[in-house]
């Protein structure tokens, strides 16, 4: 495969998926698809209160609409997330509920509805083993739910600490450490102390310790889990690092440290960041553009740690709300927008 560099990189639009009748907020690739000859499956959720499931007919062919999940959520579906096994899909809605779905034949059946948040649920995330789910809401709280046999889901912890609505929750890719980001401009890290379902905030990253100066919208991790990237209304994205070895040893908490800030690239709010398995950071912003950043290999000591690989202007006709890389094998990037469409992109060297 030819090498992509900043001089020849091109983000090619493969397909535009139309059908949603309102802005498309969230996207989720089914993690068990898109590799080993399994056609890729993508879920998208929208202000039209539906979730659409898109599937490739074969690993190289185009995407088509496979199923529509509707008539359950009564308001915007803000976020969706597949379980690690790819068997369950969680959907978080402004209707204050989170629904858990399983595929039965060609349809999706609602197994359970997680209730408890006072108002809009904004994000849902599964931990690495699929045993825990986290949700967050405008009610300023983060909830942790345990996945029990028989499609039972028990709330094991309600985490208070944010002073404003919580925009996103995200589990660490390998450890049971939870991250949340908020309208209060902070990122909080939550971990279990002892083995008693006793979850605590172990770190708060705010403006005083190199954090963001406005709403933090999204969080993503690199493949090894020792780096985190966050995006904000302050028009910057920030990269953080932690010692993965001591994180794994369980021997005390390994704090996250500021590594670098990428500012001056985005013109409006950065709603989404996602780190690919190959190390490329994609961002989606309210300036309608998608940008890709890579580690600066020529850098010896000083100079920026990351550089812009490419900027796709007018990637959508309106704000880009989400960017999500597919599996390493297919190298696809999906994006969603206020323009009501989902786009599938492929990063390739320009010919």
């Amino acid at each position, binding site marked *: 495969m030819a090498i992509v560099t900043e001089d020849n990189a091109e983000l090619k639009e493969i397909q535009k998926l139309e059908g949603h009748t309102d802005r498309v907020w969230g996207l989720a690739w089914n993690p068990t698809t898109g590799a080993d000859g399994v056609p890729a499956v993508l879920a998208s959720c929208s202000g039209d209160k539906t979730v659409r499931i898109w599937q490739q007919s074969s690993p190289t062919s185009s995407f088509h609409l496979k199923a529509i999940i509707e008539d359950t959520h009564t308001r915007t579906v803000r976020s969706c997330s597949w379980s690690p096994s790819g068997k369950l899909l969680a959907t978080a809605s402004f209707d204050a509920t989170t629904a858990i779905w399983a595929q039965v034949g060609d349809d999706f059946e609602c197994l359970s509805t997680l209730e408890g948040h006072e108002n809009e649920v904004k994000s849902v995330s599964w931990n690495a083993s699929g045993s825990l789910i986290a949700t967050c809401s405008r009610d300023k709280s983060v909830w942790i739910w345990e996945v029990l046999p028989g499609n039972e889901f028990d709330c094991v912890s309600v985490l208070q600490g944010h002073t404003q609505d919580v925009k996103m929750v995200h589990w660490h890719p390998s450890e049971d450490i939870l991250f949340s980001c908020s309208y209060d401009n902070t990122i909080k890290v939550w971990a279990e102390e002892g083995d008693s379902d006793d979850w605590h905030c172990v770190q708060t990253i705010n403006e005083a310790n190199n954090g963001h100066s406005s709403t933090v919208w999204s969080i993503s991790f690199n493949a090894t889990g020792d780096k985190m990237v966050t995006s904000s209304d302050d028009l910057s994205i920030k990269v953080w690092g932690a010692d993965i070895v001591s994180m794994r040893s369980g021997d005390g908490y390994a704090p996250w440290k500021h590594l670098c800030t990428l500012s001056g690239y985005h013109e409006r709010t950065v709603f989404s960041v996602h780190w690919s398995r190959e190390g490329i950071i994609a961002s989606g912003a309210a300036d309608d553009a998608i940008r890709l950043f890579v580690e600066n290999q020529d850098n010896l000591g000083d100079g920026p740690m990351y550089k812009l690989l490419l900027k796709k202007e007018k990637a959508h006709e309106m704000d880009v709300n989400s960017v999500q890389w597919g599996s390493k094998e297919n190298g696809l990037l999906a994006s969603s927008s*206020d323009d009501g469409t989902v786009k599938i992109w492929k990063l390739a060297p320009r010919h």
Partner: protein
Amino acid sequence: MVSGLINANPIVYEKKERRPRTGPVDLEDEDIKDPEHPYSLEDLKVITEDAIEVDDKRSYVRVTFTPTVEHCSMATVIGLCLRVKLMRSLPSRYKVDIRVAPGTHATEAAVNKQLNDKERVAAALENPNLVDMVDDCLAPSFE
């Protein structure tokens, strides 16, 4: 009995002759009613022509409004009305920022942040009571 209104006695200004405007912004072609008075936002000088900046090339609009009192709890509703009005009348390529005039509101930063958080705006516009209030302010004729 104390009036329940936030600003019971607002100053009502004489209507100014409008200069003809070309371009896509018709914020003033139809009046927007104040949430608690039978006057338009223009009558109360909450909004003036100069407070609307349009950059057609960059597809950008910024509206700066002036609440009638510093502690106006209606500021977010007024801002929401302005945003909805622009959403309904501008081509979708426009980016819109709405803010209170610097120094005219006690919680200026908080109001501005809320009005420009599109997730909060989207959630507010799924609230039937708020939508009714906004629609009432935007009703074509109220006089």
